[in-house]
Structures are given as C-alpha cells and as structure tokens.
C-alpha cells in the first residue's frame, strides 16, 4: 500500500484559536517530505517544535489532530441557533399557584420539542445508538476487492460511516397505521458475530447442565463461568481512557496559544452539550453488546456480499448463508435466526464486465427474491489528488477499544509514515453508490420487514397478553405450575415448562418473552414509543416473576426511557413517580443483582438526560439520580467531573417563572460548577476547570443578592484557592509553550482569536455594583450578557513580565468575580 501524503486539509471544523494564530505563525519546518510536503498553511501549530520535548511527540503528527476532531470543535460554534426555546417555551405553562413540581411539559414527545436538534445532544445520541443493527458477512473475494481500495476491515469498514446518516427522509408506519417521516434515521453496520456477550449463569442452576449447555451455545468453553461484569467494567474504563486522551490532547494543544486568558469568558454551554460529554456518551453507547437480555444488537438484517470476480457466485452465496446459519460463525442460540437476508453483488467497475454482472444479478434476484442489490464501485485505490475523491468520513460510533487502538497506533508511529485511517479516500461515485444502496436497502427492505414483524408479533403474542385473558394467562403461569418449581428452587427445574428462563439462563428466541422483547426493541428503533412502552411494561412483570434479573433490569430501563420520550397526558407528578420506580428497579437489578456496571451507568445517565429535558421537577429528579450515580463511584474520575458539570447544566436549565425567577436553581448550578472545577483541577485539566469556574462566576453574578458566596469566608477562600491553582496550572502550560515558540505576544494577536470563542458574549463589562435588579432579570438565562467585574477580563496576555502583574492583580482581588 502506498503511503499517503498527509497534507492536512484546512479543516472547517476547527475554528479554534490555535488555527487563527497558527496562520500568523511560520509554517512547519519540513521534517519529512512525505509527511509535510505541500503543506501551505499548517493548521496545527502543535506540529512545530517538538524535537526538544519528548512529551510532545504526539504533536509531531499533524494528522493526529484528526483523531481528536470530535472534541476540538467548541460547542458554541456548532449550531447557530441552539434550542433554548425547547426549555423556554415550557416555562410559561408553569404557574405560581402550582406545586413546585413544574408545569405540564409532558404533553409533547421529547422529539417534537426540538431537544434533539444538536448533533451532540443526548437525545440525539440515544436515537442514533438504539438503531437497527445490520450484520455484514462478505466472501473472501469481496474482502480482497475492498482491501485493494485500502480498507483492511472488509466491506464493513467501507459501509460503516455511511450508515450513520441515511440520506433523505425515511418514512415509517407505526402500529396504528399512521406514518411519519424522519430526516435523521440511521443504522449500524456490524461485522457478523462481533461483540457477543454470553448470558449470565443462572445463580441456582450451577450444576452440571449449564456448562455443557453454554458450551454448545456460544462455543466458548468456560463462558458461563466468567464474571461478565469484568468485560463490561472494562468498557467503562476504556471510555474513560478515551475521553481522558482527548482532554489531554486539548490541554496540550492549548499550550502554544498566546494567552491563558483567551478562553476566560467561556462558561459552560447550556444549550449545546460539551463535546467531551458527548464523546463520553457516544463511546458508552457505541458498543451495545450482543447480549441475550436486550435485542438491540441482534441483527435485524444481514448482508451477504460477493463480488463480481467470484468464479461461482451462487454457490458462494449459499456458502455464506450456510456459514451464518449453521456453521462456526453462527450466532448464539438465543439470537433469533429469522432476520432478513440481503444479498449484495459488488460489481467491480474497472475489471468486470457489466453485462455479465447484470445477468448474474438477475439470476440472484430469481433465486433469492427481491432483497438484492448490485453495488458498483471502483476497485482501485483512490488517492487524494484525484479529482473526484473525497475522504472517507470518520465514523462517529467507533467502539472505545477501537479508538484507543487508533490513538495508540498514532503515538507509536510518529517515526514512520503515519497513515491516518481517516485520510483514506474513496471516489465520489463510490460514495454515491454506497449511499444509494444503503438508502434503498433501509427504506425498501429493512424497514418494511421490521414493520411487518412488529405487526405480526403484536397480533400473535403481545395483544394476547394485553387483554383480560392475557392477565389470566400470566396469573396461571405464576400460580398453577409455578409454585411447585419455585419451592424446589432453580436446580434442575427444566421440567417446569412455564418458566422459560429456568434452566438455561436465557430465553430461547421462540418464547413469548423473547418475541415481545424483540417487538419492543423494534418499536423503539422505529420510534413508536407507545407500543414500545406498553410492551416493556408487560415484560417487566414477566421477568420479575421469572427472576430473570438482567432481563428485568433492561426492560425497566427501556420502559423508563420510552416513557420519558413519549407524549402523555398523565400529570407530571405521577409520571415521575412511575419513572422513578422503574429506574429504581432497573438500577437495583443491574447494580446489586447482576453486578453490571455498564448497565447501571448507562441506565442512569440516559434517564438523567431525558429527565433534564423534561424540565420542571424532572430536573430535580435528574440531579437526584446523578448524585446517586456519583455516590456509587461507578464512573472513573473523568466521568465524575463530566457528570458534575452536567449537574450544573441541569440546574442551569431550570429557569424560573416571573421576574424573580421563582423556581430557578442558580445557586445550585453554581455549586455544581465549583465542584466540577475542583474535580477537573485535581486531574490537571485546567481548561475545563476554567470553564467551570467561569460558569460559577456567571451564575453568582446573576443572583439578585449580587454577592454570591463572597461573604462566606471559608467558601470564598476556597474559590480563591481554586482560582490560584487554576492560574498556576495554566501559567505552567503557557510558560512551557512560550519556551518553544516566539510568537507575537501583543494584544493584537488576541483580537482575531477572541471572537471565535466569545461568540455569545460581549466584551464590555458592566460594573457589578451598578447592576440593578432590573437588568439582571431581563436576561435570566444570562448567557448573552457578561456582567463581570473581574479584572481578569482586561488583562494582557501572559508574557513573563505581565505574569507578575497578573499575579498582583489576582492577589489584590482574591475574591474576583465571585462577589
């Protein structure tokens, strides 16, 4: 494979200060011609003087920045008009005479409120992660063809980024016959057989049967005996490491920037989620395991692909089919084998004969039915200099292990030519062909199949359970046959036919419970919240009776999420109680009974986010759950700090009613910002800490009391101390950065830089004392006017001489900005 020229494109997604100031700096010294030849303006100042400092070897790689691209975009610049109206429009419905629980914001589906508009929003992430999974199984010649284009992972790697954004509108019909079209549908492509997680061993049935059963099930000899919490716990550790790396990169990256005071005024952003938090969520959600207790990751369809070069195509397809249904690559027993099979003929434009391929394609259609497609791509590798080549978009949904591997590789490879995986190119025609293929497959095969399955399962299984006769059925299950098997414990209770879970530790795919779980998951994926919620509700009691705890936890979790998203006419109080109950059960099952760290974290974090979006008393509930999660220490330090920031944003999003902002939680929000800043400083992430402190300052300045915690001696000492630590930390960074470059330190250098970050904030400051109650009430959200008094805002950049003046400024007003 020929090495690529890694000329960094001028990335439109990096409007960071470093980009602007870099353009004023001298261009990269040409270390290695293959790396940097042809660089005009290098948009990464980091790639400058690294030779002297071994610490910075990652910076020597200009394209390493692309690995961290997802977090380098400051949130403010992403969306021009974030959705503050989503929260704001609901506040008028709150009245003073009402309870403290807030207004009836539950009338709308969360999606309709526009809460999920920004790409990094948790709602959006939830929608994009619980999507149909399509497994790809290609024959060897397809893999060869694709690897000739430069992709070693097979067809999956080529298709993956395109699945995340399906072009155009997708129309879905729900169970009532109504249809809705969505712009943002997506699917996830997986490799066949990836990510399987063995079912938990049944606690009581740990006699001889389980070992043989599970060995036959998934081909892993001692799978049943392994503590499963191990693999899932390490997932969280991996997510933590990934986000830590990103943060570390950002810290390093800002070292060379002119002044530490440049990002001073940017506080936390209520409307757009912090990119690190979005990254955390994404990585947490990107690896939904192929487990028995939730069928989101079970493939909805599988793509069998052969290429036009194959000597015996129909036999090859048959072979693929057999491999996946009976051979070694088959999925475990608890996965339903009735998923859609989709056959793809990959036609090599440059080497194969199109008429032959068309004939073959017709033959395929005759044999296999309508679920076929011919994908025409060029088999040669696309170099960047080609006219019509575009870079392969980087997949947003990498698993953390994969991303870590990428980062490690970039670390170790800076001595050789670094082949940036994201800089591989494909032809424009290829991209169009792939997009069309995916769109056709999804809209014409996958979604109709899912809809059909939903209505089938609904009629056959679920509606039977819902009516009065259904309740009798479950009752009889519990009492008539159940009692004898209960007393005998779970040992060898295979004779008990009413308990499908009993001896196996999982539900076989043809049992009613498994079918209903699939039905509910399909409904969730197709955004039919009501059906999903009602089915999950049914399942909750079933699983509880069967004592299938992991299933029980998962069902409760999804029921709570579905209930939070859908519109309903319950009063918010009763709804919150129901949700709390479900979450409580889910959390207890996950954490205590199943010891599943991942499940517990995912459940609480997602519920917290959705509760926050619901507003009113949901915000308090969200924070309550957040505190619960913090207490359990399930997340690592990075997650902890991110969560504290999130609590601050939760409280900040609760806007009060009336002129006194009755019901707002500004002081609480400031408290959490301070806690977050403390957490960040203890991990040396000073940029994040600075943002937290700024937010706290802003919040305190909004208070009518006008003095924040200034009069509490110990508290303001603490804040001053944090401030000092922060300055120390940032100063160390800049001094280190200063030693290397001799950039221009004058204030002019700051000007083009500032507006990029201070998008929403005015540069003039009003004196705090002169601020009247009136002005502070006009801007309750406070995000646009910066009413700061701190001398920090007028400081000169941190040159060594002015560092002293900075210090003296700080000393003289130790309680700056917090009063």
């Amino acid at each position, binding site marked *: 494979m020929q090495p690529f020229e890694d000329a960094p494109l001028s990335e439109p997604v990096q409007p960071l200060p470093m980009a602007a100031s870099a353009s004023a700096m001298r261009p990269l010294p040409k270390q290695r011609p293959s790396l940097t030849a042809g660089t005009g303006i290098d948009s990464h100042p980091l790639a400058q003087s690294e030779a002297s400092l071994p610490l910075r070897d990652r910076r020597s790689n200009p394209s390493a920045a692309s690995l961290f691209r997802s977090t380098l975009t400051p949130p403010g610049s992403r969306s021009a008009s974030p959705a503050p109206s989503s929260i704001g429009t609901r506040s008028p419905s709150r009245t003073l005479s009402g309870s*403290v629980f807030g207004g009836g914001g539950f009338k709308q589906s969360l999606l309709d409120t526009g809460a999920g508009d920004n790409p990094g929003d948790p709602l959006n992430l939830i929608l994009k992660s619980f999507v149909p999974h399509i497994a790809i199984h290609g024959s060897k010649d397809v893999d060869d063809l694709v690897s000739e284009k430069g992709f070693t992972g097979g067809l999956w790697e080529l298709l993956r980024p395109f699945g995340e954004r399906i072009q155009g509108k997708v129309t879905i019909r729900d169970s009532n016959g109504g249809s809705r079209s969505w712009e943002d549908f997506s699917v996830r492509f997986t490799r066949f057989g990836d990510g399987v997680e063995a079912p938990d061993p049944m606690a009581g049935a740990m006699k001889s049967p389980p070992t043989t059963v599970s060995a036959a099930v998934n081909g892993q000899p001692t799978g049943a005996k392994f503590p499963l919490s191990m693999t899932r716990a390490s997932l969280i550790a991996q997510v933590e490491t990934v986000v830590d790396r990103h943060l570390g990169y950002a810290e390093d990256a800002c070292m060379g920037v002119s002044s530490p005071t440049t990002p001073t005024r940017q506080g936390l952003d209520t409307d757009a989620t912090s990119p690190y938090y979005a990254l955390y969520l994404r990585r947490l959600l990107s690896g939904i395991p192929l487990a028995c207790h939730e069928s989101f990751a079970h493939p909805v369809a599988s793509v069998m692909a052969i290429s036009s070069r194959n000597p015996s195509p129909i036999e090859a397809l048959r072979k693929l089919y057999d491999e996946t249904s009976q051979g070694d690559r088959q999925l475990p027993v608890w996965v339903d084998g009735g998923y859609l099979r989709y056959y793809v003929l990959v036609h090599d434009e440059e080497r194969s004969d199109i008429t032959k391929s068309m004939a073959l394609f017709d033959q395929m259609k005759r044999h296999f039915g309508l679920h076929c497609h011919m994908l025409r791509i060029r088999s040669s590798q696309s170099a960047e200099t080609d006219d019509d080549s575009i870079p392969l978009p980087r997949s947003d949904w990498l698993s953390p292990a994969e991303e870590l591997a990428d980062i490690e590789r970039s670390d170790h490879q800076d001595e050789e030519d670094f082949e940036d995986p994201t800089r591989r190119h494909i032809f424009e025609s290829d991209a169009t062909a792939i997009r069309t293929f995916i769109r056709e497959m999804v809209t014409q095969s996958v979604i109709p199949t899912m809809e059909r399955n939903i209505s089938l399962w609904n009629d056959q299984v679920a509606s039977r359970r819902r009516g009065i006769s259904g309740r009798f059925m479950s009752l009889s299950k519990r009492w008539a046959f159940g009692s004898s098997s209960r007393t005998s414990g779970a040992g060898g209770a295979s004779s008990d036919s009413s308990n499908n879970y009993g001896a196996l530790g999982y539900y076989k795919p043809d049992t009613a419970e498994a079918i209903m779980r699939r039905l509910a998951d399909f409904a969730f994926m197709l955004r039919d919240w009501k059906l999903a919620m009602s089915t999950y509700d049914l399942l909750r009691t079933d699983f509880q009776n069967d004592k299938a705890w992991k299933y029980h936890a998962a069902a409760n979790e999804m029921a709570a999420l579905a209930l939070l998203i859908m519109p309903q006419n319950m009063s918010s109080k009763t709804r919150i109680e129901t949700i709390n109950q479900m979450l409580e059960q889910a959390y207890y099952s996950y954490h205590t009974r199943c010891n599943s760290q991942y499940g517990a974290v995912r459940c609480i974090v997602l519920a917290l986010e959705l509760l926050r979006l619901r507003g009113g008393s949901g915000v308090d509930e969200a924070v309550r759950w957040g505190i619960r999660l913090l207490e359990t220490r399930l997340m690592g330090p990075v997650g902890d700090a991110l969560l504290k920031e999130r609590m601050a944003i939760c409280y900040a999003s609760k806007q009060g009613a009336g002129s006194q902002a*009755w019901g707002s939680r500004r002081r609480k929000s400031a408290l959490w910002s301070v806690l977050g800043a403390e957490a960040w400083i203890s991990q040396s992430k000073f940029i994040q800490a600075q943002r937290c402190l700024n937010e706290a300052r802003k919040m305190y300045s909004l208070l009518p009391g006008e003095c*924040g915690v200034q009069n*509490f001696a110990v*508290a303001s000492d*603490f804040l001053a101390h944090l401030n000092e630590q922060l300055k120390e930390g940032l100063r160390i960074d800049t001094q280190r950065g200063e030693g290397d470059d001799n950039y221009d330190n004058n204030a002019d250098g700051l000007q083009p830089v500032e507006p990029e970050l201070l998008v929403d904030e005015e540069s003039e400051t009003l004196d705090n004392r002169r601020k009247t109650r009136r002005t502070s009430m006009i801007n309750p959200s406070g995000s646009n006017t910066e009413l700061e008094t701190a001398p920090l805002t007028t400081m000169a950049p941190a040159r060594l001489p002015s560092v002293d003046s900075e210090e003296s400024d700080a000393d003289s007003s130790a309680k700056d900005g917090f009063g």
Partner: protein
Amino acid sequence: MSYYFAVIGTQDNPLFEYEFGTSKQGGDGQLRFSDQVRHLNQFVLHSSLDIVEEIQWTNGQLYLKAMDKFFNSYISCFITGGNVKFLLLHQPPGANSSNVIGGVGGIAATTTRSTSIGANPTSPQTEEAVKNFFTEVYDNYVKAIMSPFYKANMEIKSPVFRSRVAAAGRKYL
C-alpha cells in the same frame, strides 16, 4: 452528628455562623466534619437557598422542615418574617468521610442508635427537636436585632447571642 447553623440575611449574606456537634447520646459536642468537606458546607447551605426561595411562597409555615438534601447532608430551614433565613445543615455520622456507599453505610452505622435524634434527620423526633431549636434561636434573634445599634442585614456579633445559640444546641440537638 455534626451541625452547621447559619443565619442568612436578605442579600445572601451570612449574619451568623456556628458549627457544633451533638451533645446527645454520647456525643461530646465536637464537630465531626472532615476538613475536606468543611468548605463545602457553606456552598451547600448557600445553594439550598434556591429551594428555600421556591418553597417559601407556597408554604405558609415559618418552619420549613428538612427541605433539601445534598449527598448525605440534610438542610432544614426556618424563615422569619423579615425574610431572614435560619439554615441548619445536619450530617448523620458514619457517612461523611467518603461517598462510597453513601446511604447504605450510613444506615448500617446508625442502626444501633436508630432512635437517636441525629441518626435519622427526617424522623418526626428530629424535626421536633430542630423546630424547638429554631424557636429558641428565633427568640434570641428577635432580642438581638431589637438593639438600636443593629441595622438591617448587619452581622450579629453579640457574644450573648452566640452563647444562647450554643446553649440551645446543647439542649435540643
């Protein structure tokens, strides 16, 4: 069981602060706050003003019970007619050193003294005790602010007031 009591004026400024430990049931009146969380107490108290301000308009009582909770600290409030707030932060013992097991550890540690006032901050006995404490402090507060040298929102520096508050704490809490 440790307590942190503060009188907050109308501008969020503390007029009086006092920390003490329980003298009941074997407590020696000493503080049990660990150093690292002591500074947090003031923040927490300040932040609970948000809740106070929300509740005070819908609740007709002067004594608002334990209306806020932060990790394992409970905050009770008594509001005077002049919008001056008495806030009491109480922290049951056994759960303040780390937040690991949170409530579970706290409960386990205090099962032996489950009838003591400090152990369960939301029990009726505790509420009663705190209410009596507040009432006594309120009496003394009114006497303190009646001094002609006292202006609104000034700090209360009277040593007599401090000793009276301490006595009330020993008596009720």
